[in-house]
């Protein structure tokens, strides 16, 4: 496919570039990186993600690669199945002889690949999986993760939620681990800060199969003053449309996970309900120099605004490059040693992969929804640094198995 030959072409470009730098005669052998993601199952997120890592790869190779060697990414689709992800991981490791693995979106697939990395003793840089278990209970020496997991995402929202006057809260979340742990953490944290809060209802629609009208009515019946939402994608769209029609959100505060990410906010359009407290990514508005440079390059290359997936893809690739450069080798033990504490420049600023739990300090944006020209936008946002919300050393020690 065209896309896969792009990475080959980029690799070739890198070879040319490194030849220019290192003089004629010796073409350096490329460093092979194996990449796995749910391209066919979740294209709305993974296609921008691929744009992101491809742009980063191009930049890395244009700058002469890593220690004179170009980087080549061999990318595979996991078909949305953990079993298939293990198959392609094995293929990348035994047939393509990649030096390390990166990628994945779904938590269970990320965990499956992470377990392969542990078994085969190879570095895995997880891009997106949100489950806390990945760096805590199931954490191990060979897996590092970029995105802030469920707990800090919730913690950021709890800070804002605690400021609200609302006392009666209801929750709605998809019926799987991500939804369940988000709600559990949210309830525990908010109740700890605000003992006066009452939890009046919880709804657990099956992911992708929400019965939106019934769910909205059930929520309305409990007469909450505020709602914590974890649904996203098509379920969220249905929930909002039904909620708007039936007046569910009138006079109620809503705190909502991930809703500000362009992947989920853009399709809402004029249906966006203003004033929700959300986490997300206000791509067009961030004016730090590093983000401006990223935005300009991304728009020049793809002609559209980046999505959060683009940031994740770009930053994962840059993390891999930083680890490779720091290690000065493709030996796994050296890579692992280098990855602990490595600093990476991302569009959100410099991040560090914490040695204690292998979690990066990439942060997130929290803000409010608004409607502008018939489109949903994120306003009044601030950037929250990951290090301020990630679990402390004591908690890591208690929950994460020792190497």
């Amino acid at each position: 496919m065209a896309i896969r030959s792009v990475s080959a072409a980029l690799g070739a470009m890198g070879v040319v570039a490194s030849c220019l730098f290192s003089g004629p005669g010796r073409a350096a052998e490329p460093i092979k990186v194996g990449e796995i993601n749910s391209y066919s199952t979740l294209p709305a997120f993974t296609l921008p993600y691929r744009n992101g890592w491809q742009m980063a790869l191009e930049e890395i190779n244009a700058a002469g690669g890593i220690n004179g060697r170009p980087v080549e990414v061999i990318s595979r689709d996991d078909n949305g199945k953990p079993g298939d992800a293990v198959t392609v991981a094995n293929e990348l490791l035994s047939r393509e002889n990649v030096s390390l693995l990166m990628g994945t979106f779904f938590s269970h697939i990320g965990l499956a690949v992470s377990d392969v990395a542990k078994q085969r003793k190879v570095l895995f840089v997880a891009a997106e999986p949100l489950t806390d278990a990945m760096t805590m209970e199931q954490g191990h020496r060979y897996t590092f993760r970029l995105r802030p997991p469920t707990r800090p995402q919730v913690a950021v929202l709890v800070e804002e939620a605690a400021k609200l006057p609302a006392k009666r809260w209801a929750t709605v979340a998809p019926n799987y681990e991500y939804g369940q742990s988000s709600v559990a953490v949210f309830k525990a944290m908010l109740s700890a800060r605000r003992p006066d809060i009452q939890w009046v209802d919880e709804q657990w629609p099956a992911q992708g199969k929400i019965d939106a009208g019934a769910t909205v009515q059930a929520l309305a019946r409990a007469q909450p003053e505020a709602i914590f939402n974890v649904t996203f994608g098509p379920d969220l769209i249905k929930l909002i449309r039904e909620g708007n029609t039936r007046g569910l959100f009138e006079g109620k505060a809503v705190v909502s996970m991930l809703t500000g990410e362009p992947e989920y906010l853009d399709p809402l359009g004029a249906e966006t309900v203003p004033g929700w407290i959300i986490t997300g990514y206000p791509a067009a508005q961030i004016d730090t120099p590093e983000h401006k440079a990223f935005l300009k390059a991304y728009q020049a290359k793809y002609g559209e605004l980046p999505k959060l997936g683009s940031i994740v893809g770009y930053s994962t690739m840059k993390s891999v490059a930083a680890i490779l450069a720091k290690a000065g080798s493709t030996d796994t033990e050296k890579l692992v040693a280098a990855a602990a504490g490595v600093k990476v420049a991302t569009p959100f600023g410099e991040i560090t992969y914490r040695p204690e739990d292998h979690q990066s300090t990439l942060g997130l944006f929290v803000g409010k929804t608004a409607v502008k020209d018939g489109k949903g936008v994120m306003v009044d946002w601030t950037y929250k640094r990951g290090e301020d919300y990630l679990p402390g050393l004591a908690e890591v020690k208690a929950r994460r198995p020792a190497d």
Partner: protein
Amino acid sequence: MEFLFSQFLTGLASASSLFLVASGLSIIFGVSRIVNFAHGSLYMLGAYIAYSLVEHSGLGGGNFWIALPVAALGVALLGLLLEVTLLRKIYHAPELLQLLATFGVVLVVQDAVLMIWGPEDLLGPRAPGLAGAVRLFHQAIPQYDLFLISLGPVVLALLWLLFHRTHWGTLVRAATHDRDMVAALGVNQASLFTGVFTLGALLAGLGGALQLPRGAVSHAMDLQIIVEVFVVVVIGGLGNVFGAFLAAIIIGELNAFGILVFPQMTLVLTFLAMAVILVVRPWGLRGKPQSLAHGAAVAGGRVLRRLPPAAGKAFLLVAVLLLALPWLGSGYALNVATEMAIYALFAASLHLLSGIGGMVSFGHAAYFGLGSYGAALAAKSLGLPMELALLAGPLTGALGALVYGWFCVRLSGVYLSMLTLAFAQITYAVAFQWSSLTGGDNGILGVWPSHWASGPVAFYYLTLVVCGGSILILRHIVFSPFGYTLRACRDSEIRADAIGIDARHHRWLAFILCGFFAGLAGGLFAFFKGSVFPDSASIGTSVDGLVMVLLGGIQTLTGPVVGAVIYTALRIFVSTYTDYWRAVIGVVIILLVVAFPQGIVAWTADRFQAWRAIRPAVKTKEKAA
């Protein structure tokens, strides 16, 4: 009280949407006996086409009401094309092959939608004129819901008029009752089937287009609706439109009220309801016992015989090649071969149940999944070594089949198939939600083989010996008295009964046996992948098994093994080289179905037989000369 009333109306609105799609599926099945897996794809296309018409035709306000019938007609046209170009060619193939063909269509449509409409979720406008809500008993009810609620009965009435007041409708009803008799009376079956399929597609397209004002148009719409719609059709009674209407109301209301009482049960409520209804009413609410004995239809009139001695040599050669594979292929090739061997056993166990026993399971992943979890839990929770934990797989699989099978053997045909699906979904939901035992959707990790078997070569040999041996045992069972008894029960239950065979008892035994071997495959799979997820008991895994069996050919013994090898190879290799692997595999499946309607192995065997029949004649001629 007011709240309950408005919740009831909400349930009715969902019921109407379900009914429109389900009625189309029911009509198609009633007449042509096609299990149209692509019905959800037609529904999804209806929604996407309506979206494009509303957003890009530039007709301005009120546009949705024009887009609605146009999209439905467009989908009807696609249905017509599908019937004429594909399904018509395979009406004479064994019944289930059309299911395989429509599965190919599902895959192609998924990628076509991605290519045409892009990856993002799309949100259409609200319905012009019905955008708001009305207040009934102090509750806000969306106007569009009221429109949907009234549309359901209107469509039901129109269908009733069509089937009872027109000549064509009378023929359709006659064909639903006894299609051979209708054909014998000189009715052109082909055009009747085309008409029915087109009508079904129209209803699916309409159902999809009607969803536009209710929420997002997305890629997953097809698979989200198809299972639920099958449930409605089966609960209602196959081919019975009024039954589908009743069933849709039951499911719609159950979902609406179920979330008030058991908000955590959303995954499984529908399937629990179906299981209960089928156990109480084996032919659904309004269905009648099928005129055609379903098991006989599976066999397609072909008698399974032992292979000629010449084939033994070929098998010996294959066995030698398999044993020599570690010297011929790389570590990765061994990996792929291991996966193929596991799936071959899975498919072979499904084949004993479906091909030999005549009980087509849509939920065979239940036993595969139970086996995976059994083995993984034995290793992780009980701390057993791999050798012992592997034994736990077949035992849990057999235990599951013992319980589920007891209920299933009381049913027949598609009703039995759907009950197996219901049990598989219940198993899936338990694996998914019983987090303290199964780890929920984050699964069980770190299920790796013992040290001696951890290398690719050792694990390959382990799998080869276990799976190869099991497949030989399965083959032996087929030609044992038990196997012949099963086939007798499949081909004529009445005659089997007359000579004193307890069909139910034998079928139950078959279930347990197949559960045992599927569980064994599942246990191996757990150690092969190193982790277990609810995924292994999902509908996707069941469908994969069915595709393997049908692709190879349900009437031969080697068919499922060949099907498993080909399908696994396609999935692994095609997805390595293209993002559009679904479209490629879909097209390959469609081509294979058209080229080998009996399955690949049966086709090859027929050619071989024909060649052998000619050869002696040629030789004698040569001698004479």
